[in-house]
């Protein structure tokens, strides 16, 4: 599995992580192309349904990126997202997908560097974990 290229879905809050991703662009900070961003108005808009759907369709990793603690544009959306991610992780254990494949990260809009760093770290982590077990299930 040397040339395994994981596909990672990043649900990014419009007010922070999505802007940070643009910032990484304007600073020309490079990160792996494995990360595909889906823009959401707030990290709390992300639903268990979306995360599970991503894994079901074949995502090797998913992360939800929201604002720093206390900085949510909508008061407490990011802390709800943290709870949701923890909640979904429990079910992932049950259905046999490693919980490490799902993560919650926080950053501010100005953190282009952190965005690139997080994208790189998560890609490397998932690369080490190998393809999602869903792929084996699909090919059966």
């Amino acid at each position, binding site marked *: 599995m040397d040339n395994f290229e994981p596909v990672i879905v990043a649900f990014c809050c419009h007010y922070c992580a*999505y802007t940070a991703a643009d910032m990484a*662009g*304007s600073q020309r900070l490079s990160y792996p192309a494995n990360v*595909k961003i*889906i823009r959401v*108005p707030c990290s709390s*808009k992300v639903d268990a*349904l979306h995360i599970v759907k991503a894994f079901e369709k074949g995502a090797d990793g998913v992360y939800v990126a929201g604002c720093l603690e206390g900085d949510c544009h909508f008061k407490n*959306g990011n802390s709800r997202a943290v709870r949701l991610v923890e909640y979904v992780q429990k079910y992932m254990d049950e259905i046999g997908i490693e919980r490490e494949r799902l993560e919650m990260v926080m950053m501010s809009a100005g953190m282009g560097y952190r965005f*690139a760093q997080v994208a790189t770290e998560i890609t490397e982590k998932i690369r080490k974990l190998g393809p999602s077990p869903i792929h084996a299930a699909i090919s059966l």
Partner: protein
Amino acid sequence: MQNIQPQYNNKVLVIGGGMGGIRTALDLAEAEKNVILVDKAYAIGGLMTQLDRTFPTNNCDLCTLSPNLSESSRQEFIELLTMTTVKDVRGEKGNFTVLLETAPRYINLEKCTACGECHKAYPECVRFTPGLDHRAPTCMRYPQATPQAFSIDLAKCTDVEALMKSCPAGAINPDDMGRKREVHCGSIVFSPGGALFDPSHLDYLGYATQADVVTSLEYERILSASGPTMGQLVRPSNGQQPKKVAWIQCIGSRGLQKGAGQYCSSACCMFALKEAIVTKERFQDDIETTIFFIDMRTMGKDYELYYLRAKNEFGVRFVRSRPHSILREHGKENLTLTYSAEEGGANLTEEFDMVVLSTGFRVADDVKELALKMGLELNADSFPKTDGFNPVVTSVPGIYVAGVIQSPKDIPETMVQASAAACMAGSDLGPVMEKVEREQEPLPLETGVVGEEPRVGVFICDCGENIGGVVDAAALAEYAGTLPHVAVAELKGHGCSRESMQQIQETIKAERLNRVVIGGCSPRTHEAKFQEVIRRAGLNKYLVEVANIRDQVTWVHANRPQRATEKAKDLIKMAVGSVVRAQPLADHSLPMNKNVLIVGGGITGMTTALQLANQGLKVYLVEKSAGLGGLATSLRRTLEGGDVQAFVKDLVLRTESHDNIQVITRAIIVDHSGMPGMFKTGMQTGKQMFYRQIEHGVTILATGALPNRPSLYLLDECEAVSTQRELQTLIEDQPGTVKAWDNVVMIQCVGSRTPDNPNCSRICCQNAVKNALHIKEINPDARIFVLYRDMRTYGFQEEYYLKARELGVIFSRYTLENPPKVEATDQMVNVTFTDPILGRQITVTANCLCLSTGLVADEDSNDELARIFKLPRTGDGYFLEDHVKLRPVDLPIPGFFVAGTAHSPKTIRESVAQALAVASRARTMLAKDSINLGAAAARVDKNICAACLICVRSCPFGIPFINADGYSEIDPAKCHGCGMCASACPAKAIQLMQFEDDRIIAKLEELFERNIA
């Protein structure tokens, strides 16, 4: 009451299209006032477009501002005239007549698409506007250059016909004659910016003879990824990377060289720090950076922290010294710098690979000429003289200044003055007349799309080299054409150019498209623009989706073109899958509440209140204490000699008697809710602490700062020890006491620039100079010692510092590690300090020891207000603005502004400038009659809703409720659009418009369809 001016001169003329001029023009245009913006260059942007990055964030910030100018909604109020100079100004406030002369560009701006063909064919005779002369033509760092067009230097062209043929648009016009034109305006903002000092004549610095001696701006260009060396930091002499770089400060400033101004150029210390930090960031231990300086002047907001980082984190070396010469010894490649250090005074030498001269600002000769033509009184350094309390007001009524022309300054201060000048110039136009119905093409009716088969048009931008340079944009368009529902897929150069937008509209109509995908830059910056495009083509504006293949693909995966292409394909496929499910939506809007809440009744709050009240707005001025005036009630004179008490009394009188201002004293803010344009703030007021609530559209914080009073140097223990503020009162009220003094000692930076309070208080150096001069006035024989760490008399304050030294005031430097020692003796104080030049300890028995204690943030009040309003603060407790460089008085939450010492310590004049600036910024928002809330609101499907109350509990704003019919109802005008309820709803009865579940899931399905197969 001002007379209503006739229509023809109800305009503001802004001279100079640098960052300041642009800000002034935008502020006025957003407040729906007509502006003529003239600049002599080919494109606007001024000096800042040549900067690689800006302090203290080390970002390239140009792109944040420049796109605003091309926004058509604002453009209708701005007439932009580039390559234009002002030839003559006649008339008076309210009715100026100005003669303008526009030089020929030889290019028809209407036709030029900035395609670059002419430049490719005849580089020698084309002035490349978008990237500026110093930048490589391939650089599109400044792709929104306004106007986006080239310019021809006809004198250099040998074959005009061939040149004309090279232009596919037929835009080249060799018969362009330029033109002269008379315009009428009610007021003028003069913001021509500064020129940089030219050190060529100073032979001992070697600038004219040594290639490796460069100015700070030249170094900036060499450092820049888009500069002449394509970002390679190399020595101009031999193309090698330098190992040792030195900066020499104060070149052309502080009267130190022949031809230098007497003033301090204010921005060069930070400029040098930035260049040294950026250099260290890139080369770390591979390069040595040394700054040779006299006083390190980092007096701006959080600038001291930047200085400390340069020293402690980046290892920039600092040498307090005076330079003697820069020479290259025969047979050597390196430069030899000879200097005398502060201690010892002997000449030292050191070799460097490169030496950067930190050249200061000056007034250009043509600018001086124009200033005189306008009748402005100038000071000895050719800067226009300005009012003692209002720095943007000149000697000619109706003409205002902003930026470096007022006094040397950095970008944030320029932005403040630009908005302040906009406020003053705008108010000269008289009350806004009934809104003129603008000639606007009526929008076509929206085509019905519900139930229609989706026909998607995909338009891929190559964005110059930005996208096309990394991925094969044509292949991308071809791929998009193969996707389901896609009827048309085309490649566009710049999708955001006027020409492309026109073409997209035509394609939509001709191909009967009902959905559009743009593959280009970020929807954050350009979605609104494309929404407007498709709306004009007869589609509902929410039927477009922007795939971010630039900022999030080509810019970040340039090193992996293959992977970048795959990802770009994925993003386009996802966007198509999502947009076919998009439904037409209607925007929600609410009427704007035009009342203003100002918190804080000091000079700043009152100045803002009066400006806005004069413009017909209702102002609530809320003050915590029992009366107006704030800290200024205890101040007497400004450095320039202005009478503070008279100024404050007049402000209080006008504020209290103004019909549009309601002053509420003894008020404490307790709660806050709502959104920009419709806030509700609750407070407890009066002795009884009654609760009352105010409804308002914007909130302005002018809460000020507190005088610091640390228990240091016997303060509050010994009678002879006072603060500068107390000394000022004593000098005014008891000159007899002062007359009897023999010795006075002042200690600077007491409680500032220390580990507990690391920032500089900004005001203390000029305070010390002011009081020292005043003492000398009363008692010329008094010996005054000022013990300082760095004298920070920036701008024209330097002249007062010089005067104090001429009058014999002794300035002696101490260090943080070796502070002066004090000891009380009877009614006197013994102060012992080490003078670095004499190299010995001195003890002075002082009649008066005066401490420069500066200001600190009002921790209790600010903490409370920040919590109630949800506003961020700096590490030392001041309110943190939205953008430290470009939006210095806007807070990050829309509808909130900050001014005065609540922002950071500053002088009265600087507070007044900020007060006027927030008035201008607030005005831009309040000019609109309604608040557009967009369409991203949650919608409940009543057939599925089980009234389980989960949405009611999840909403952070308490908007959903169970209505009489037994299902959840969400008022779209109140919904903030976060989608929390939608994700929480167990029955999926709630959908957030624009982010519906089926669209998100469609993206996932499209992404993985190919990846799994």
